[in-house]
């Protein structure tokens, strides 16, 4: 299988879905710029033209309502937020309307299968309001599906799945992932929504991770192997619906759980998975669950503060060693350099 970039995989999934379904259109700020959301919409614009890929004014809430109104009469709109944080402006439409449409009309008003793509920023001092990670806030509400592809195959696969899904789907994409590469099938292979993936098998400890933290967890697991620690890594892929079975099977097997998330702890995804293990796999746990999340403050800008704000592969690996009582380890800094030089 060929290797392609995460951004190319997103693009390929979108183009293949648009070929199949003429009702799909893509809109949002900058989707038709030459930069094309890290190149993920460029090919769709070239292939299908400005009638199906077009810019929008800065009006996140109305745009989402407009997408819902178009979906209600048969379209399948894709909205893109180049910055996750702007999506807060659309929460009324997403949460009060899209998430509930099918339910609150008793199924009699049909469904509004919009797809909302949003980018999580990180690095180069993106700061407090350009780098948040909104999965927990969205996944709280029944009716929305929330997915976070970490690897190129799932970037394509979840795009394809979202664009045939019967209800609204939010795809959260981490900006640090766009240039990562991986094997991706050329044909249209959907990744099922609601299914986690065990991306590395192990026996000593389970690391459940979201998005970029799955990428970091895999790196940590490789470093831990040098120390004789066998870590299993579960890439959750879907925040809602959550694949409890895969997570619990892994926890029961290893007896230890680290949850690494791209957001904060309190009321967050990492707490949710910790609670899941405590409620349903308590008898298997050999150690307290450890959550790895952002420092409990808004994202700072200055480089020295950013460095301590974000957890990474080193944080995960060291937490695993502590949990296993491996005080003899000589593991040092394993974080990869961030080559991102902004401005965007």
């Amino acid at each position, binding site marked *: 299988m060929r290797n392609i970039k995460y951004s190319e995989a997103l693009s390929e999934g979108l183009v293949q879905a648009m070929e199949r379904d003429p009702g799909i*259109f893509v809109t949002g700020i900058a989707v038709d710029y030459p930069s094309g959301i890290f190149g993920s919409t460029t090919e769709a614009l070239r292939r299908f033209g400005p*009638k199906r890929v077009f810019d*929008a*004014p800065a*009006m996140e*809430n*109305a*745009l*989402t*309502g*407009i*997408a*819902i*109104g*178009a*979906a*209600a*009469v*048969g*379209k399948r*709109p894709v909205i893109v937020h180049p910055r996750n944080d702007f999506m807060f402006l659309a929460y*009324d*439409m997403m949460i*009060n*309307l899209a998430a509930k*449409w*099918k*339910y*609150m*009309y*008793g*199924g*009699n*008003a*049909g469904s509004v299968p919009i797809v909302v793509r949003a980018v999580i920023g990180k690095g180069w001092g993106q700061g407090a309001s350009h780098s948040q990670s909104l999965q927990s806030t969205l996944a709280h509400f*029944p*009716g929305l*599906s929330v997915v976070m592809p970490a690897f190129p195959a799932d970037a394509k696969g979840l795009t394809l799945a979202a664009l045939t899904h*019967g*209800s609204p789907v939010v795809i959260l994409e981490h900006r640090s992932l766009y240039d990562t590469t991986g094997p991706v099938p050329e044909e249209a292979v959907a990744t099922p929504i609601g299914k986690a993936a065990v991306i590395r098998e192990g026996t000593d400890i389970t690391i459940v991770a979201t998005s970029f933290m799955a990428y970091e967890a895999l790196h940590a697991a490789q470093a831990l192997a040098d120390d004789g620690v066998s870590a299993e890594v579960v890439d959750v892929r879907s925040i809602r*619906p959550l694949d409890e079975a895969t997570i619990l099977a892994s926890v029961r097997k290893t007896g230890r759980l680290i949850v690494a998330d791209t957001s904060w702890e309190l009321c967050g995804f990492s707490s949710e998975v910790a609670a899941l293990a405590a409620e349903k796999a308590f008898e298997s746990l050999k150690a307290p669950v450890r959550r790895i999340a952002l420092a409990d403050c808004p994202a700072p800008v200055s480089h020295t503060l950013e460095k301590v704000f974000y957890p990474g592969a080193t944080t995960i690996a060291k937490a695993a060693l502590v949990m296993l009582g491996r005080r003899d380890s000589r593991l040092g800094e394993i974080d990869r350099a961030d080559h991102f030089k902004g401005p965007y």
Partner: protein
Amino acid sequence: MRAISSFPDPEQPATGRIPPEVEVGLYRNMLRVRNAEETLAALYREKEMRTPTHFGVGQEGVAVGVCEALLPGDVVYTHHRCHTHYLAKGGSLLGLVAELYGREDGCSRGRGGSVHLTDRSVGLMGSSPILGQGVALAVGSALAFKMDGASTVAVSFFGEGTCDEGVVYESFNYASVNKLPVLLVCENNFYATESPLETRQPSGTRLCDRARAFQISAEKVDGNDVAAVYEAAQRALARIRAGEGPQFLECETYRWLEHVGPMFDHELARTYRTREEVEAWMQRCPVKRAGHRLLARGLATQAGLDEWRREVVDEMTAVVAQAKASPWPDPSTLFENVY
């Protein structure tokens, strides 16, 4: 008292040239809506309808005048005070009544309640109680119609209170930039809940100017004159179908009952508006005015009006019995239609 034409927008009164069968249809539709609302409000006092309900008694002229001017394929979005639009567009009466009683035969199968009505079979897409949502939704459906080259029109009904919301102006802007086939119908009943317009908008505000600021043509009309509303809607719809883009209608009207619930404000000693003001507006009753015009044009007799009234009362009586006999939703279906 708040009076019609208190602002200097030109207003076109009804021409008096509406075809007789349309004039009769407008009256009978309003009569049916009025009777349904008054019956529901009376029954609501029995406390068997457990859903916050915003009755539209007094505002029938706007819903009926606009909906009668639409084509069957056109779609409508409405807000919390939605029974009038739902019925005027042809929504199932049983669907409405059973919904208020929380039954399986409700238009939303007892999952939605009074503020979440739908009847897609007649193009009543949905009502939603969060102000401004319906404006964006209608603009979105209009976008889809334009993409498909269809001549279909989307309509949004909203109150003047919704003109306080930012999403409205985002939506106006988008509809105008893209010349979308959407009819924006503002029902100005002067109060958002209990807050009068003058405490929420600068003095002298003309809502039509809000639309005009986005290059949307706007017209103000007496919302309690169903014929004037019908003709204004026809003019606006003709411009929309000619490709001229969104049109805005401000219809001045008045809600007789409290904001939410079946009571008159004076029954609850509310002071945000006077009983005299309410009663003066009740004198401007849109149903009575339309009835008088039918008599004046010789299109009906008083006996005929009485007969039509008996028909709607009989229909409603039967539907209420049917709704009360409708099954409750089965608790085992709680999780249906989440995704």
